[in-house]
Protein backbone atom coordinates (compact mmCIF):
# COMPACT_ATOMS: atom_id res chain seq x y z
CA UNK A 1 0.00 0.00 0.00
CA UNK A 2 2.91 2.30 0.80
CA UNK A 3 4.51 1.68 -2.59
CA UNK A 4 1.19 2.30 -4.24
CA UNK A 5 0.79 5.63 -2.43
CA UNK A 6 4.25 6.75 -3.52
CA UNK A 7 3.51 5.77 -7.09
CA UNK A 8 0.28 7.71 -7.09
CA UNK A 9 2.00 10.77 -5.65
CA UNK A 10 4.64 10.60 -8.37
CA UNK A 11 2.05 10.54 -11.13
CA UNK A 12 0.78 13.78 -9.63
CA UNK A 13 3.89 15.63 -10.78
CA UNK A 14 3.11 15.82 -14.52
CA UNK A 15 -0.48 16.78 -13.73
CA UNK A 16 0.73 19.61 -11.53
CA UNK A 17 3.20 20.81 -14.14
CA UNK A 18 0.54 20.85 -16.84
CA UNK A 19 -1.84 22.59 -14.47
CA UNK A 20 0.73 25.22 -13.53
CA UNK A 21 1.46 26.09 -17.17
CA UNK A 22 -2.24 26.34 -18.02
CA UNK A 23 -3.09 28.47 -15.02
CA UNK A 24 -0.10 30.74 -15.44
CA UNK A 25 -0.93 31.30 -19.09
CA UNK A 26 -4.65 31.90 -18.59
CA UNK A 27 -4.12 34.26 -15.71
CA UNK A 28 -1.47 36.36 -17.40
CA UNK A 29 -3.42 36.61 -20.66
CA UNK A 30 -6.34 38.35 -18.97
CA UNK A 31 -6.27 42.00 -20.02
CA UNK A 32 -5.57 44.54 -17.29
CA UNK A 33 -2.51 44.90 -15.09
CA UNK A 34 -2.07 44.98 -11.33
CA UNK A 35 -0.01 48.16 -11.26
CA UNK A 36 -2.72 50.42 -12.64
CA UNK A 37 -5.27 48.88 -10.30
CA UNK A 38 -3.01 49.52 -7.32
CA UNK A 39 -2.27 53.10 -8.31
CA UNK A 40 -5.84 54.07 -9.13
CA UNK A 41 -7.51 56.38 -11.57
CA UNK A 42 -5.09 59.30 -11.56
CA UNK A 43 -1.85 57.43 -12.24
CA UNK A 44 0.10 58.44 -15.33
CA UNK A 45 1.39 55.80 -17.76
CA UNK A 46 4.96 56.48 -16.56
CA UNK A 47 4.01 55.78 -12.96
CA UNK A 48 2.25 52.57 -13.95
CA UNK A 49 5.25 51.44 -15.96
CA UNK A 50 7.58 52.18 -13.05
CA UNK A 51 5.51 50.13 -10.61
CA UNK A 52 5.12 47.31 -13.14
CA UNK A 53 8.90 47.15 -13.25
CA UNK A 54 9.24 47.17 -9.48
CA UNK A 55 6.79 44.27 -9.27
CA UNK A 56 8.81 42.35 -11.85
CA UNK A 57 5.90 42.13 -14.25
CA UNK A 58 7.75 43.66 -17.20
CA UNK A 59 9.84 40.57 -17.93
CA UNK A 60 8.86 38.10 -20.68
CA UNK A 61 6.15 35.66 -19.60
CA UNK A 62 8.36 32.61 -19.95
CA UNK A 63 10.97 34.14 -17.65
CA UNK A 64 8.31 35.06 -15.12
CA UNK A 65 6.95 31.50 -15.28
CA UNK A 66 10.27 29.88 -14.51
CA UNK A 67 11.03 32.33 -11.71
CA UNK A 68 7.69 31.45 -10.22
CA UNK A 69 8.07 27.71 -10.79
CA UNK A 70 11.47 27.63 -9.10
CA UNK A 71 10.00 29.44 -6.11
CA UNK A 72 7.01 27.11 -5.95
CA UNK A 73 9.19 24.02 -6.02
CA UNK A 74 10.92 25.43 -2.95
CA UNK A 75 7.55 25.80 -1.27
CA UNK A 76 7.37 29.57 -1.78
CA UNK A 77 4.29 30.71 -3.66
CA UNK A 78 5.47 34.29 -3.78
CA UNK A 79 3.82 37.39 -2.40
CA UNK A 80 0.35 38.68 -3.13
CA UNK A 81 0.67 41.77 -5.33
CA UNK A 82 -2.30 43.29 -3.62
CA UNK A 83 -1.76 42.46 0.05
CA UNK A 84 2.01 42.32 -0.05
CA UNK A 85 1.72 39.25 2.22
CA UNK A 86 2.95 35.73 1.36
CA UNK A 87 0.46 33.93 -0.87
CA UNK A 88 0.34 30.89 1.38
CA UNK A 89 -0.73 32.95 4.38
CA UNK A 90 -3.43 34.64 2.29
CA UNK A 91 -4.66 31.21 1.17
CA UNK A 92 -4.49 29.80 4.68
CA UNK A 93 -6.70 32.63 5.82
CA UNK A 94 -9.33 31.78 3.23
CA UNK A 95 -8.93 28.04 3.70
CA UNK A 96 -9.91 28.30 7.36
CA UNK A 97 -13.35 29.59 6.37
CA UNK A 98 -13.75 27.23 3.44
CA UNK A 99 -12.82 24.11 5.40
CA UNK A 100 -15.08 24.96 8.32
CA UNK A 101 -17.91 25.73 5.94
CA UNK A 102 -17.37 22.44 4.11
CA UNK A 103 -17.27 20.47 7.38
CA UNK A 104 -20.45 22.06 8.63
CA UNK A 105 -22.16 21.39 5.31
CA UNK A 106 -21.06 17.75 5.54
CA UNK A 107 -22.72 17.54 8.95
CA UNK A 108 -26.05 18.57 7.43
CA UNK A 109 -25.57 16.19 4.55
CA UNK A 110 -24.96 13.33 6.97
CA UNK A 111 -27.86 14.28 9.22
CA UNK A 112 -30.35 14.70 6.41
CA UNK A 113 -28.96 12.77 3.48
CA UNK A 114 -28.28 9.34 4.95
CA UNK A 115 -31.47 8.71 6.95
CA UNK A 116 -33.69 10.03 4.18
CA UNK A 117 -31.83 7.97 1.60
CA UNK A 118 -32.20 4.82 3.74
CA UNK A 119 -35.87 5.57 4.31
CA UNK A 120 -36.42 6.11 0.64
CA UNK A 121 -34.76 2.80 -0.29
CA UNK A 122 -36.63 0.85 2.39
CA UNK A 123 -39.95 2.00 0.99
CA UNK A 124 -38.92 1.66 -2.63
CA UNK A 125 -41.75 2.58 -4.98
CA UNK A 126 -44.14 3.64 -2.26
CA UNK A 127 -45.32 7.18 -1.57
CA UNK A 128 -42.57 7.85 1.00
CA UNK A 129 -40.00 7.00 -1.64
CA UNK A 130 -41.68 9.11 -4.27
CA UNK A 131 -42.00 12.06 -1.95
CA UNK A 132 -38.38 11.97 -0.75
CA UNK A 133 -36.89 11.24 -4.17
CA UNK A 134 -38.98 13.96 -5.79
CA UNK A 135 -38.18 16.39 -2.99
CA UNK A 136 -34.47 15.65 -3.29
CA UNK A 137 -34.58 16.29 -7.01
CA UNK A 138 -36.44 19.54 -6.47
CA UNK A 139 -33.77 20.74 -4.04
CA UNK A 140 -31.05 19.82 -6.50
CA UNK A 141 -32.80 22.11 -8.99
CA UNK A 142 -32.65 25.29 -6.90
CA UNK A 143 -29.93 27.85 -7.69
CA UNK A 144 -27.91 28.15 -4.49
CA UNK A 145 -27.68 31.93 -4.53
CA UNK A 146 -31.45 32.21 -4.82
CA UNK A 147 -31.93 29.99 -1.80
CA UNK A 148 -29.25 31.91 0.09
CA UNK A 149 -30.82 35.30 -0.60
CA UNK A 150 -34.16 34.16 0.76
CA UNK A 151 -32.60 32.48 3.80
CA UNK A 152 -30.87 35.78 4.64
CA UNK A 153 -34.11 37.66 4.19
CA UNK A 154 -36.09 35.33 6.41
CA UNK A 155 -33.68 34.30 9.16
CA UNK A 156 -31.39 37.32 9.40
CA UNK A 157 -33.45 40.33 8.38
CA UNK A 158 -37.03 39.40 9.32
CA UNK A 159 -36.53 37.06 12.25
CA UNK A 160 -33.10 38.27 13.34
CA UNK A 161 -32.08 34.81 14.55
CA UNK A 162 -28.83 34.38 12.68
CA UNK A 163 -26.08 36.59 11.29
CA UNK A 164 -26.55 37.59 7.68
CA UNK A 165 -23.00 37.57 6.41
CA UNK A 166 -19.32 37.67 7.14
CA UNK A 167 -17.28 35.31 9.30
CA UNK A 168 -14.97 36.61 12.04
CA UNK A 169 -11.85 34.60 12.73
CA UNK A 170 -12.12 31.61 15.07
CA UNK A 171 -9.44 32.74 17.46
CA UNK A 172 -9.78 34.61 20.71
CA UNK A 173 -12.81 34.64 22.96
CA UNK A 174 -16.16 33.20 21.93
CA UNK A 175 -14.48 31.47 19.06
CA UNK A 176 -16.88 28.57 18.62
CA UNK A 177 -19.79 30.97 18.84
CA UNK A 178 -18.63 32.46 15.59
CA UNK A 179 -19.56 29.22 13.87
CA UNK A 180 -23.16 30.44 13.88
CA UNK A 181 -22.12 32.74 11.04
CA UNK A 182 -21.79 29.59 8.96
CA UNK A 183 -25.22 28.15 9.74
CA UNK A 184 -27.14 29.76 6.88
CA UNK A 185 -24.34 29.36 4.32
CA UNK A 186 -23.86 25.70 5.21
CA UNK A 187 -27.59 25.01 4.94
CA UNK A 188 -27.63 26.74 1.57
CA UNK A 189 -24.77 24.60 0.35
CA UNK A 190 -26.18 21.44 1.91
CA UNK A 191 -29.51 21.63 0.07
CA UNK A 192 -28.37 20.54 -3.40
CA UNK A 193 -25.56 18.34 -2.10
CA UNK A 194 -27.73 16.46 0.40
CA UNK A 195 -30.14 15.85 -2.44
CA UNK A 196 -27.39 14.13 -4.42
CA UNK A 197 -26.36 12.04 -1.41
CA UNK A 198 -29.97 10.99 -0.79
CA UNK A 199 -30.20 9.69 -4.32
CA UNK A 200 -26.85 7.99 -4.04
CA UNK A 201 -27.63 6.29 -0.71
CA UNK A 202 -30.93 5.09 -2.11
CA UNK A 203 -29.38 3.73 -5.28
CA UNK A 204 -26.49 1.95 -3.54
CA UNK A 205 -28.83 0.44 -0.95
CA UNK A 206 -31.01 -0.94 -3.71
CA UNK A 207 -27.97 -2.32 -5.54
CA UNK A 208 -26.55 -4.00 -2.47
CA UNK A 209 -29.90 -5.47 -1.48
CA UNK A 210 -29.86 -7.46 -4.69
CA UNK A 211 -26.50 -9.04 -3.87
CA UNK A 212 -26.04 -12.64 -2.77
CA UNK A 213 -24.95 -12.21 0.83
CA UNK A 214 -28.04 -10.16 1.57
CA UNK A 215 -30.26 -12.82 0.09
CA UNK A 216 -28.48 -15.38 2.22
CA UNK A 217 -29.04 -13.30 5.33
CA UNK A 218 -32.70 -12.99 4.51
CA UNK A 219 -32.94 -16.69 3.79
CA UNK A 220 -31.40 -17.42 7.20
CA UNK A 221 -34.46 -15.69 8.63
CA UNK A 222 -32.77 -12.57 10.00
CA UNK A 223 -35.13 -9.79 10.92
CA UNK A 224 -35.62 -7.42 7.94
CA UNK A 225 -34.48 -4.32 9.88
CA UNK A 226 -31.30 -6.13 10.96
CA UNK A 227 -30.69 -7.08 7.37
CA UNK A 228 -31.21 -3.50 6.32
CA UNK A 229 -28.77 -2.08 8.85
CA UNK A 230 -26.13 -4.80 9.17
CA UNK A 231 -25.83 -6.03 5.63
CA UNK A 232 -27.24 -3.47 3.28
CA UNK A 233 -26.39 -0.17 4.92
CA UNK A 234 -22.80 -1.07 5.85
CA UNK A 235 -21.97 -2.12 2.34
CA UNK A 236 -23.75 0.77 0.73
CA UNK A 237 -21.67 2.98 2.97
CA UNK A 238 -18.57 2.29 0.89
CA UNK A 239 -19.93 4.07 -2.16
CA UNK A 240 -21.30 6.83 0.03
CA UNK A 241 -17.94 7.30 1.75
CA UNK A 242 -16.31 7.78 -1.62
CA UNK A 243 -18.93 10.33 -2.57
CA UNK A 244 -18.26 12.18 0.68
CA UNK A 245 -14.61 12.51 -0.19
CA UNK A 246 -15.37 14.16 -3.50
CA UNK A 247 -18.18 16.25 -2.06
CA UNK A 248 -15.80 17.64 0.53
CA UNK A 249 -13.19 18.60 -2.06
CA UNK A 250 -15.89 20.20 -4.19
CA UNK A 251 -17.33 22.09 -1.22
CA UNK A 252 -13.97 23.59 -0.36
CA UNK A 253 -13.32 24.83 -3.87
CA UNK A 254 -16.68 25.37 -5.48
CA UNK A 255 -18.58 27.28 -2.82
CA UNK A 256 -17.81 30.58 -4.53
CA UNK A 257 -21.43 31.56 -5.14
CA UNK A 258 -22.48 30.89 -1.56
CA UNK A 259 -19.41 32.73 -0.30
CA UNK A 260 -20.39 35.70 -2.44
CA UNK A 261 -23.98 35.77 -1.21
CA UNK A 262 -22.87 35.64 2.42
CA UNK A 263 -19.65 37.64 1.97
CA UNK A 264 -17.58 34.86 3.51
CA UNK A 265 -13.81 35.27 3.35
CA UNK A 266 -13.29 31.84 1.76
CA UNK A 267 -11.24 30.43 -1.08
CA UNK A 268 -13.85 31.10 -3.75
CA UNK A 269 -14.23 34.77 -2.83
CA UNK A 270 -10.49 35.07 -2.73
CA UNK A 271 -10.25 33.85 -6.32
CA UNK A 272 -13.08 36.09 -7.56
CA UNK A 273 -11.60 39.16 -5.90
CA UNK A 274 -8.08 38.27 -6.98
CA UNK A 275 -9.25 37.99 -10.58
CA UNK A 276 -10.77 41.46 -10.34
CA UNK A 277 -7.51 42.77 -8.84
CA UNK A 278 -5.32 40.78 -11.24
CA UNK A 279 -3.44 39.39 -8.26
CA UNK A 280 -1.70 36.72 -10.33
CA UNK A 281 0.29 34.89 -7.61
CA UNK A 282 -2.82 34.37 -5.47
CA UNK A 283 -4.95 32.97 -8.31
CA UNK A 284 -2.15 30.62 -9.34
CA UNK A 285 -1.50 29.56 -5.77
CA UNK A 286 -5.13 28.79 -4.97
CA UNK A 287 -5.70 26.72 -8.07
CA UNK A 288 -2.50 24.71 -7.57
CA UNK A 289 -3.37 24.04 -3.92
CA UNK A 290 -6.83 22.83 -4.92
CA UNK A 291 -5.46 20.58 -7.65
CA UNK A 292 -3.30 18.96 -4.97
CA UNK A 293 -6.31 18.69 -2.67
CA UNK A 294 -8.32 16.91 -5.37
CA UNK A 295 -5.47 14.50 -6.00
CA UNK A 296 -5.07 13.72 -2.30
CA UNK A 297 -8.79 13.14 -1.86
CA UNK A 298 -8.78 10.87 -4.89
CA UNK A 299 -5.95 8.85 -3.41
CA UNK A 300 -7.59 8.66 0.02
CA UNK A 301 -10.83 7.46 -1.52
CA UNK A 302 -9.03 4.73 -3.43
CA UNK A 303 -7.14 3.65 -0.31
CA UNK A 304 -10.35 3.63 1.66
CA UNK A 305 -12.01 1.47 -0.94
CA UNK A 306 -9.22 -1.04 -0.69
CA UNK A 307 -9.60 -1.21 3.07
CA UNK A 308 -13.36 -1.38 3.21
CA UNK A 309 -13.96 -3.66 0.29
CA UNK A 310 -11.80 -6.81 0.16
CA UNK A 311 -12.69 -7.32 -3.49
CA UNK A 312 -10.68 -4.26 -4.54
CA UNK A 313 -6.94 -4.73 -4.88
CA UNK A 314 -4.36 -2.06 -5.48
CA UNK A 315 -1.63 -2.60 -7.92
Amino acid sequence: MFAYTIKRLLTLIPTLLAASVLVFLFVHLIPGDPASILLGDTATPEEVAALTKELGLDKPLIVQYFYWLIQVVQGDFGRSLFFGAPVLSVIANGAQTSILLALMTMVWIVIFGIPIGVLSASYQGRWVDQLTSGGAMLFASVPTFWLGLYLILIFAVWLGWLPSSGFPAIDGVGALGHLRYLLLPSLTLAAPNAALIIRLVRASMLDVSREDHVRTARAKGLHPSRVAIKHIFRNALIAVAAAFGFTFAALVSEAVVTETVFSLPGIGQLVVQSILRRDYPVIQGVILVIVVLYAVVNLLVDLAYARLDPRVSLQ
Partner: protein
Amino acid sequence: MTAVVQQVQDIFAGRRLASIGLSWLILILIVAIAAPLIAPFDPYEIDPIARLSPPGWPHLFGTDHFGRDTFSRAIYGARMTVLIGSGSVIVALLTGGLIGMLSAYFTRAGNVLMRGVDVLMAFPALLLALVLITLLERSVVNTIIVIGIVYATTTARILYGMTLKLKREVFVDAAICSGAGHGSILFRHILPNLLSPLLVQASFIFAFAQLQAAALDFLGLGLPAEVPSWGNMLAEERIYITRAPWLLLFPGALIILSVFSMNLVGDAMRDSIDPRFKDDIAGV
Protein backbone atom coordinates in the same frame (compact mmCIF):
# COMPACT_ATOMS: atom_id res chain seq x y z
CA MET B 1 -41.83 8.65 -36.51
CA THR B 2 -44.57 6.54 -34.96
CA ALA B 3 -41.84 4.40 -33.41
CA VAL B 4 -40.44 7.46 -31.63
CA VAL B 5 -43.88 8.48 -30.40
CA GLN B 6 -44.42 4.94 -29.17
CA GLN B 7 -41.10 5.01 -27.32
CA VAL B 8 -41.88 8.35 -25.68
CA GLN B 9 -45.25 6.98 -24.64
CA ASP B 10 -43.59 3.92 -23.13
CA ILE B 11 -41.14 6.01 -21.16
CA PHE B 12 -43.67 8.43 -19.77
CA ALA B 13 -46.60 6.06 -19.29
CA GLY B 14 -47.54 6.01 -15.62
CA ARG B 15 -45.04 8.74 -14.74
CA ARG B 16 -47.25 11.71 -14.14
CA LEU B 17 -44.55 14.05 -12.80
CA ALA B 18 -42.17 13.31 -15.65
CA SER B 19 -44.98 13.89 -18.14
CA ILE B 20 -45.74 17.27 -16.62
CA GLY B 21 -42.02 18.04 -16.78
CA LEU B 22 -41.89 17.15 -20.44
CA SER B 23 -44.92 19.33 -21.15
CA TRP B 24 -43.28 22.25 -19.37
CA LEU B 25 -40.11 21.87 -21.42
CA ILE B 26 -42.12 21.76 -24.63
CA LEU B 27 -43.89 24.93 -23.54
CA ILE B 28 -40.53 26.63 -22.88
CA LEU B 29 -39.37 25.63 -26.33
CA ILE B 30 -42.49 27.07 -27.97
CA VAL B 31 -42.18 30.29 -25.98
CA ALA B 32 -38.51 30.58 -26.93
CA ILE B 33 -39.27 30.21 -30.63
CA ALA B 34 -42.28 32.52 -30.60
CA ALA B 35 -40.88 35.07 -28.11
CA PRO B 36 -41.38 38.16 -30.31
CA LEU B 37 -45.02 37.17 -30.87
CA ILE B 38 -45.79 36.54 -27.21
CA ALA B 39 -43.88 39.32 -25.46
CA PRO B 40 -46.13 42.36 -25.02
CA PHE B 41 -43.17 44.80 -24.76
CA ASP B 42 -39.70 45.30 -26.16
CA PRO B 43 -37.52 43.63 -23.48
CA TYR B 44 -34.94 46.43 -23.80
CA GLU B 45 -37.33 49.39 -23.71
CA ILE B 46 -36.48 51.70 -20.79
CA ASP B 47 -39.30 53.54 -19.03
CA PRO B 48 -38.08 55.64 -16.09
CA ILE B 49 -41.60 56.51 -14.98
CA ALA B 50 -42.76 52.91 -14.63
CA ARG B 51 -39.70 51.74 -12.66
CA LEU B 52 -40.19 48.91 -10.16
CA SER B 53 -43.95 48.67 -10.68
CA PRO B 54 -45.58 45.69 -9.00
CA PRO B 55 -47.17 42.88 -11.02
CA GLY B 56 -50.45 43.94 -12.61
CA TRP B 57 -51.67 45.38 -15.86
CA PRO B 58 -50.03 46.01 -18.33
CA HIS B 59 -46.87 44.67 -16.68
CA LEU B 60 -47.86 41.13 -15.69
CA PHE B 61 -44.63 40.41 -13.78
CA GLY B 62 -43.97 44.07 -12.89
CA THR B 63 -40.99 46.09 -14.09
CA ASP B 64 -37.31 46.18 -13.13
CA HIS B 65 -35.18 49.15 -12.07
CA PHE B 66 -34.85 50.34 -15.66
CA GLY B 67 -38.64 50.21 -16.01
CA ARG B 68 -38.32 47.28 -18.43
CA ASP B 69 -41.17 44.79 -18.60
CA THR B 70 -40.20 41.74 -16.55
CA PHE B 71 -42.71 39.46 -18.28
CA SER B 72 -41.28 40.24 -21.71
CA ARG B 73 -37.76 39.75 -20.41
CA ALA B 74 -38.77 36.40 -18.92
CA ILE B 75 -40.23 35.38 -22.28
CA TYR B 76 -36.99 36.26 -24.05
CA GLY B 77 -35.12 34.58 -21.18
CA ALA B 78 -36.61 31.28 -22.36
CA ARG B 79 -34.53 31.72 -25.51
CA MET B 80 -31.33 31.94 -23.47
CA THR B 81 -32.37 28.86 -21.49
CA VAL B 82 -32.78 26.81 -24.64
CA LEU B 83 -29.67 28.28 -26.24
CA ILE B 84 -27.36 27.79 -23.26
CA GLY B 85 -28.75 24.33 -22.51
CA SER B 86 -28.53 22.93 -26.01
CA GLY B 87 -25.27 24.74 -26.77
CA SER B 88 -23.56 23.30 -23.70
CA VAL B 89 -24.91 19.84 -24.54
CA ILE B 90 -23.55 20.04 -28.08
CA VAL B 91 -20.12 21.26 -26.96
CA ALA B 92 -19.90 18.67 -24.19
CA LEU B 93 -21.06 15.73 -26.30
CA LEU B 94 -19.09 16.64 -29.40
CA THR B 95 -15.78 17.22 -27.65
CA GLY B 96 -16.11 14.97 -24.60
CA GLY B 97 -18.10 12.27 -26.39
CA LEU B 98 -15.69 12.01 -29.28
CA ILE B 99 -12.64 12.00 -27.03
CA GLY B 100 -14.14 9.29 -24.83
CA MET B 101 -15.23 7.08 -27.71
CA LEU B 102 -12.05 7.40 -29.71
CA SER B 103 -9.86 6.89 -26.65
CA ALA B 104 -11.62 3.66 -25.81
CA TYR B 105 -11.43 2.47 -29.38
CA PHE B 106 -7.83 3.39 -30.19
CA THR B 107 -6.40 2.31 -26.88
CA ARG B 108 -2.82 3.50 -27.25
CA ALA B 109 -3.50 7.11 -28.27
CA GLY B 110 -6.51 6.95 -26.01
CA ASN B 111 -4.44 6.46 -22.90
CA VAL B 112 -2.67 9.74 -23.54
CA LEU B 113 -5.90 11.56 -24.31
CA MET B 114 -7.59 10.30 -21.18
CA ARG B 115 -4.61 11.45 -19.13
CA GLY B 116 -5.30 14.91 -20.55
CA VAL B 117 -8.90 14.59 -19.46
CA ASP B 118 -7.67 13.63 -16.00
CA VAL B 119 -5.57 16.78 -15.86
CA LEU B 120 -8.62 18.85 -16.70
CA MET B 121 -10.71 16.99 -14.14
CA ALA B 122 -8.15 17.76 -11.47
CA PHE B 123 -8.99 21.47 -11.84
CA PRO B 124 -11.64 23.10 -9.72
CA ALA B 125 -14.13 23.47 -12.58
CA LEU B 126 -15.97 26.59 -11.50
CA LEU B 127 -12.83 28.52 -10.56
CA LEU B 128 -11.30 27.64 -13.90
CA ALA B 129 -14.47 28.79 -15.62
CA LEU B 130 -14.19 32.14 -13.84
CA VAL B 131 -10.63 32.66 -15.03
CA LEU B 132 -11.56 31.59 -18.57
CA ILE B 133 -14.57 33.89 -18.81
CA THR B 134 -12.55 36.87 -17.63
CA LEU B 135 -9.97 36.01 -20.23
CA LEU B 136 -12.47 35.51 -23.06
CA GLU B 137 -14.89 38.32 -22.08
CA ARG B 138 -18.58 37.85 -21.39
CA SER B 139 -20.66 36.58 -24.30
CA VAL B 140 -23.26 33.95 -25.05
CA VAL B 141 -20.83 31.82 -27.05
CA ASN B 142 -18.11 31.97 -24.40
CA THR B 143 -20.55 31.03 -21.66
CA ILE B 144 -21.61 28.01 -23.71
CA ILE B 145 -18.00 27.01 -24.39
CA VAL B 146 -16.95 27.29 -20.77
CA ILE B 147 -19.90 25.31 -19.43
CA GLY B 148 -19.59 22.80 -22.26
CA ILE B 149 -15.93 22.17 -21.45
CA VAL B 150 -16.70 21.65 -17.77
CA TYR B 151 -19.12 18.83 -18.65
CA ALA B 152 -17.04 17.53 -21.55
CA THR B 153 -14.63 15.93 -19.09
CA THR B 154 -17.29 13.89 -17.29
CA THR B 155 -18.87 12.99 -20.62
CA ALA B 156 -15.51 11.76 -21.91
CA ARG B 157 -15.08 9.53 -18.85
CA ILE B 158 -18.56 8.07 -19.22
CA LEU B 159 -18.32 7.38 -22.94
CA TYR B 160 -14.87 5.90 -22.46
CA GLY B 161 -16.28 3.33 -20.06
CA MET B 162 -19.32 2.51 -22.17
CA THR B 163 -17.35 2.13 -25.38
CA LEU B 164 -14.88 -0.20 -23.67
CA LYS B 165 -17.78 -2.42 -22.62
CA LEU B 166 -19.23 -2.48 -26.13
CA LYS B 167 -15.89 -3.29 -27.70
CA ARG B 168 -15.95 -6.68 -25.99
CA GLU B 169 -19.35 -7.54 -27.46
CA VAL B 170 -19.85 -10.17 -30.08
CA PHE B 171 -21.41 -7.92 -32.68
CA VAL B 172 -18.27 -5.77 -32.78
CA ASP B 173 -16.12 -8.82 -33.38
CA ALA B 174 -18.53 -9.84 -36.10
CA ALA B 175 -18.21 -6.45 -37.76
CA ILE B 176 -14.42 -6.65 -37.62
CA CYS B 177 -14.46 -10.12 -39.15
CA SER B 178 -16.68 -8.95 -41.98
CA GLY B 179 -13.98 -6.41 -42.82
CA ALA B 180 -15.66 -3.19 -41.66
CA GLY B 181 -13.37 -0.13 -41.33
CA HIS B 182 -12.78 1.77 -38.08
CA GLY B 183 -15.22 4.53 -39.02
CA SER B 184 -17.91 2.07 -39.86
CA ILE B 185 -17.46 0.12 -36.63
CA LEU B 186 -17.41 3.24 -34.51
CA PHE B 187 -20.27 5.13 -36.06
CA ARG B 188 -22.49 2.38 -37.49
CA HIS B 189 -22.11 -0.33 -34.89
CA ILE B 190 -21.00 1.21 -31.59
CA LEU B 191 -22.54 4.69 -31.68
CA PRO B 192 -26.17 3.58 -32.28
CA ASN B 193 -25.98 1.53 -29.09
CA LEU B 194 -24.82 4.59 -27.18
CA LEU B 195 -27.49 6.96 -28.42
CA SER B 196 -30.05 6.48 -25.70
CA PRO B 197 -27.57 6.71 -22.80
CA LEU B 198 -26.15 9.79 -24.53
CA LEU B 199 -29.60 11.30 -24.61
CA VAL B 200 -29.94 10.76 -20.88
CA GLN B 201 -26.52 12.29 -20.25
CA ALA B 202 -27.57 15.21 -22.45
CA SER B 203 -30.67 15.84 -20.38
CA PHE B 204 -28.62 16.04 -17.18
CA ILE B 205 -26.07 18.36 -18.79
CA PHE B 206 -28.91 20.54 -20.00
CA ALA B 207 -30.32 20.78 -16.49
CA PHE B 208 -27.05 21.51 -14.72
CA ALA B 209 -25.91 23.94 -17.40
CA GLN B 210 -28.86 26.13 -16.40
CA LEU B 211 -27.67 26.24 -12.81
CA GLN B 212 -24.07 26.89 -13.81
CA ALA B 213 -25.09 29.65 -16.21
CA ALA B 214 -27.25 31.27 -13.53
CA ALA B 215 -24.34 31.07 -11.09
CA LEU B 216 -21.99 32.71 -13.61
CA ASP B 217 -24.56 35.42 -14.28
CA PHE B 218 -24.86 35.99 -10.56
CA LEU B 219 -21.10 36.44 -10.22
CA GLY B 220 -21.18 38.91 -13.11
CA LEU B 221 -19.16 36.56 -15.29
CA GLY B 222 -21.81 34.94 -17.44
CA LEU B 223 -23.86 36.30 -20.29
CA PRO B 224 -23.43 39.99 -21.15
CA ALA B 225 -25.34 41.96 -18.53
CA GLU B 226 -27.80 43.49 -20.99
CA VAL B 227 -28.97 40.10 -22.30
CA PRO B 228 -32.30 39.12 -20.80
CA SER B 229 -31.67 35.74 -19.18
CA TRP B 230 -33.28 34.46 -16.02
CA GLY B 231 -29.92 34.40 -14.27
CA ASN B 232 -29.15 37.99 -15.26
CA MET B 233 -32.58 39.09 -14.12
CA LEU B 234 -31.86 37.63 -10.69
CA ALA B 235 -28.36 39.07 -10.59
CA GLU B 236 -29.36 42.58 -11.62
CA GLU B 237 -32.37 42.91 -9.36
CA ARG B 238 -31.14 41.07 -6.28
CA ILE B 239 -30.72 44.20 -4.18
CA TYR B 240 -34.44 44.89 -4.59
CA ILE B 241 -35.38 41.69 -2.77
CA THR B 242 -37.11 43.63 0.01
CA ARG B 243 -38.50 46.46 -2.09
CA ALA B 244 -39.72 44.45 -5.08
CA PRO B 245 -39.68 40.74 -4.14
CA TRP B 246 -41.46 39.68 -7.34
CA LEU B 247 -38.35 40.59 -9.32
CA LEU B 248 -36.58 37.59 -7.80
CA LEU B 249 -39.56 35.35 -7.43
CA PHE B 250 -40.52 34.93 -11.09
CA PRO B 251 -37.11 34.28 -12.68
CA GLY B 252 -36.16 32.06 -9.73
CA ALA B 253 -39.30 29.97 -10.09
CA LEU B 254 -38.75 29.68 -13.83
CA ILE B 255 -35.21 28.37 -13.35
CA ILE B 256 -36.26 25.87 -10.68
CA LEU B 257 -39.21 24.58 -12.72
CA SER B 258 -37.11 24.12 -15.84
CA VAL B 259 -34.19 22.41 -14.14
CA PHE B 260 -36.56 20.21 -12.14
CA SER B 261 -38.46 19.24 -15.30
CA MET B 262 -35.29 18.38 -17.14
CA ASN B 263 -34.11 16.24 -14.22
CA LEU B 264 -37.45 14.42 -14.09
CA VAL B 265 -37.36 13.71 -17.79
CA GLY B 266 -33.75 12.56 -17.62
CA ASP B 267 -34.57 10.28 -14.71
CA ALA B 268 -37.49 8.72 -16.53
CA MET B 269 -35.37 8.10 -19.60
CA ARG B 270 -32.57 6.57 -17.56
CA ASP B 271 -34.90 3.94 -16.17
CA SER B 272 -35.70 2.85 -19.68
CA ILE B 273 -32.19 2.44 -21.06
CA ASP B 274 -29.98 -0.57 -21.39
CA PRO B 275 -29.25 -1.81 -17.84
CA ARG B 276 -25.55 -2.27 -18.74
CA PHE B 277 -25.10 1.51 -18.92
CA LYS B 278 -27.38 2.55 -16.12
CA ASP B 279 -24.61 2.79 -13.57
CA ASP B 280 -22.43 4.86 -15.84
CA ILE B 281 -24.77 7.81 -15.75
CA ALA B 282 -25.43 8.89 -12.22
CA GLY B 283 -26.31 12.45 -13.05
CA VAL B 284 -23.63 14.98 -13.77
